[in-house]
């Protein structure tokens, strides 16, 4: 029935073989129709606008709600036919799900132009205006352009039949591949790793500044953090373990053996950290559920 996006051979009304003239015609038709709708929307009277946005949001969300509550087909394997109309809807929902799940990314991807536009607007303005920051803005624009050129060029080369794995070997590289490798592996990725590792410094300064025995809460935080850190330092852990062992008199089954740093830290994690996180998570989950309900029914903005 509703096989809009089902990979089916031979073509239905919704698809056509690649390189077929029909497909091109259909696509152009769809584009024209789509832009037609867009122009119609431009003329939409103001009082209908909210309704249109509500409708679009509701329908999009409704797909997943239906997928959730509609009984999904039992014991289905490839090539099965639905038993009845009810089952058919279940089949269709299940088949459409992988397609629908890509929509968000596709539409989000189309909007990237707006992001680039924002960047360019700010930095081109700065370049034109001159001043101290102009050279930096120029660097930004230049490195972006270089990355786009070599990124796509390198990708294009790798797309050629059989070229991909060949280009994994540095001996077969040309200038383009070197340039892309330099920009991506040599610069971008290394800068990401550098920025990631910079956090260590900030952790040190934050701990120094904030971990003071000021209030009960701060003391609890500090003490737990210290226990966990010490349990991960094997020198301390080892010595402590020896001490615990001597208190226990070498008896492996003594209750005292539970007080090695590893066991204490493990116990804190399992019986306090995990449930307390789960406690926050319950709240956050309900919050997200409520927010989603409001978004789906367009109640969110109405509140303002």
């Amino acid at each position, binding site marked *: 029935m509703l096989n809009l996006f089902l990979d*089916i051979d031979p073509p239905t009304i*919704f698809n*056509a*073989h*690649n390189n077929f003239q029909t*497909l091109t015609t259909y*696509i152009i038709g*769809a*584009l024209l129709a*789509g832009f037609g709708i*867009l122009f119609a929307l431009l003329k939409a009277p103001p009082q209908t606008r909210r309704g249109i*946005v509500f409708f679009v949001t509701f329908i*999009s*969300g409704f*797909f997943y*709600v239906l*997928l959730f509550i509609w009984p999904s087909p039992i014991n289905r394997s490839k090539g099965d036919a639905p038993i009845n109309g009810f089952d058919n809807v279940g089949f269709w929902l299940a088949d459409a799900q992988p397609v629908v799940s*890509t929509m968000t990314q*596709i*539409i989000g991807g189309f909007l990237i132009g707006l*992001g680039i536009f924002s960047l360019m607007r700010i930095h081109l303005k700065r370049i034109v205006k001159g001043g101290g920051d102009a050279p*930096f803005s120029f*660097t*930004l624009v230049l*490195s*972006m352009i270089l990355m*786009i050129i070599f*990124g796509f060029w390198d990708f294009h080369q790798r797309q050629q*039949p*059989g070229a991909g794995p060949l280009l994994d070997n540095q001996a077969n590289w040309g200038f383009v591949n070197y340039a892309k490798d*330099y920009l*991506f592996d*040599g*610069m971008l990725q290394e800068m990401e*790793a*550098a920025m990631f*590792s*910079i*956090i260590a410094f900030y*952790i040190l300064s934050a701990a120094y500044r904030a971990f003071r025995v000021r209030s009960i*809460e701060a003391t*609890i*935080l500090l003490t*737990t*953090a210290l*226990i*966990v*850190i010490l349990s991960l330092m094997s020198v301390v852990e080892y010595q402590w373990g020896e001490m615990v062992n001597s208190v226990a008199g070498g008896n492996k089954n003594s*209750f005292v053996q539970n007080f090695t740093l590893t066991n204490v830290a493990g116990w804190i994690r*399992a*019986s*306090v*950290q995990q449930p307390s*996180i*789960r*406690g*926050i998570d319950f*709240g956050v989950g309900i919050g997200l559920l409520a927010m989603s309900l409001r*978004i*789906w029914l367009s109640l969110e903005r109405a509140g303002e």
Partner: protein
Amino acid sequence: MKYELWKTGSSVLATFGLYSVLYRENKFYRFFEHIFLGLAAGWTLVVIWVEIEKDQWWGKMLGANNDAGTSMVQSGYWLYAFLVPIGVMGYFVFSKKHNWISKIPIGIVLGLYAGQQFQAWLQRYGPQISTSLKPILPTTFTSITVPDNPVPGEVYFTQALTNAISLFTLLSVVAYFLFSFNENNKLLNRLSTSGRWLLMIGFGAIFGTTVTMRFTLLIDRMHFVWIDFVRDMLLRR
């Protein structure tokens, strides 16, 4: 080899360029920051085309999505073309008169996200509720702690105690996040205060665990700078 030296040298330079912000904001940092942002923006464009639009949209629309070498003919789906005008609608955000149209693609994206959350909620929290249900009283007193060879199915005293503490932690933390109950409710107040303290224990433990990972990354970076580059590349050249 010369290329490797160049490449690694630039990486080291970039690393210190970014680190220099630790002292204060300066031109060296600003230079590398702008390179970073430019490269990232460029790469984003490449990735969006390569990983999203080409595979999931262009390829499916034209049916050219088969790997090189497979002879399978795949059909194209013209309905995908409708996504172009929807994407274009987003660009109306700067129009003074028609900016509301940009709400349509956003509405679709948010609608899809919101619709998923009902199922996602159950899938995520169902198991979490289930793991929280643990016996809080012991079934046997033959041993206080868990012996070396525990009898399967028995709950020992220390286990039950730990489970009870977990349960109390969970309930008191949730109680801390109740917003609409009167602050004069004594029981709830006590519960939420202890909830806050137990939360702090949890946060402390997270902090301790994370610290080691972040330090390891720094150590790895320093290894890259001093051992991989300075010692093995510069000095042994």
